């Protein structure tokens, strides 16, 4: 496939992800840390984020199913999730985590359930978009091109 066309798609997708608030400048920081000596850095961090999130979402679901709910425990998981999403630049996920923590502070079970659903939804959205982005990068590199650099 035409490298320039792939690069154009990459630029357009990245631009959209930032514009729609899916990613923030922390993601750019990670991209800047990737170079020929560490060509898979972003993909590796993203993979860790996906694994970590799957684990945290299971734990959160389990914790919220308990009766009574241990809000301190729920909050601890959300705190972890907020941290990892912030470290990767997953902006919308992080924003929901902030609201989720407020619901924990208030002992608001209904609010917590809704926040969990919302954060699961946001994770599905960012995951699919990042998978497309990383796949484009692989295609660009396989075709001998350079990944476009966002300033």
């Amino acid at each position, binding site marked *: 496939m035409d490298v320039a066309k792939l690069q154009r798609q990459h630029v357009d997708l990245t631009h959209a992800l930032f514009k729609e608030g899916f990613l923030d400048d922390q993601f*750019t920081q990670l991209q800047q840390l990737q170079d020929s000596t560490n060509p898979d850095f972003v993909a590796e961090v993203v993979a860790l*984020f996906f694994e970590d999130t799957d684990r945290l979402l299971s734990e959160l679901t389990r914790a919220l199913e308990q009766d009574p709910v241990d809000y301190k425990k729920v909050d601890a998981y959300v705190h972890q999730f907020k941290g990892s999403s912030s*470290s990767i630049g997953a*902006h919308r996920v992080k924003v929901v985590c902030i609201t989720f923590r407020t619901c924990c502070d208030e002992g608001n079970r209904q609010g917590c359930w809704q*926040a969990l659903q919302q954060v699961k939804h946001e994770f599905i959205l960012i995951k699919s978009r990042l998978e497309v982005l990383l796949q484009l990068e692989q295609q660009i590199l396989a075709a001998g091109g350079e990944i476009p*650099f966002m*300033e």
Partner: protein
Amino acid sequence: MARTNISREIDAKKQLPSRAPVTPDIHVLAVDDSNIDRKVIERLLKTSSYKVTSVDSALRALEILGIEEGRSPSTANSFQVNMIITDYSMPDLTGYDLLKRIKENAGLKDIPVVIMSSENVPTRIKRCLEDGAKDFIIKPVQLEDVKRLSQHFSSTIKKSSGVVCSKRKQEIEDAQSRKIASRCPHVHELRVIA
């Protein structure tokens, strides 16, 4: 908002900020229970030419430093750690607890300790700086935060601890303001119906 820049020059990709001229044999011990944060801090430190050992707990850090229970003081710092950078919130021993243990140990108390936290709590920052932390980084950690670390290796200038604390606090606040200002402006307000 981030601008795109498809450059035809291959080297456009390699636009890392200029690296601080740090000697390659400065050994930093990074402590963080988050595997993602450990990976990021490792890469940030290695990019800045530090040698890095990363561990997932304060207890593990104490083992590396040779000050776990029952070890003799002569084993302290056999791994030649020159700086410790630690997360604040960790299960079991916190970064603050680790800081105290290091400062209580004659063989280790002069090693600069930097604390990281995702939470900007002024009383927490103040307490860490007053109790011996050289710096406090608000997460997410970025390259400019790591560049700031090199000053802790320069020759020490004797100052009153109060002056150092307030200067450091100003740097921490400035760094945080810069981070907030550079965030993506298109923040969507996500409403949770609670």
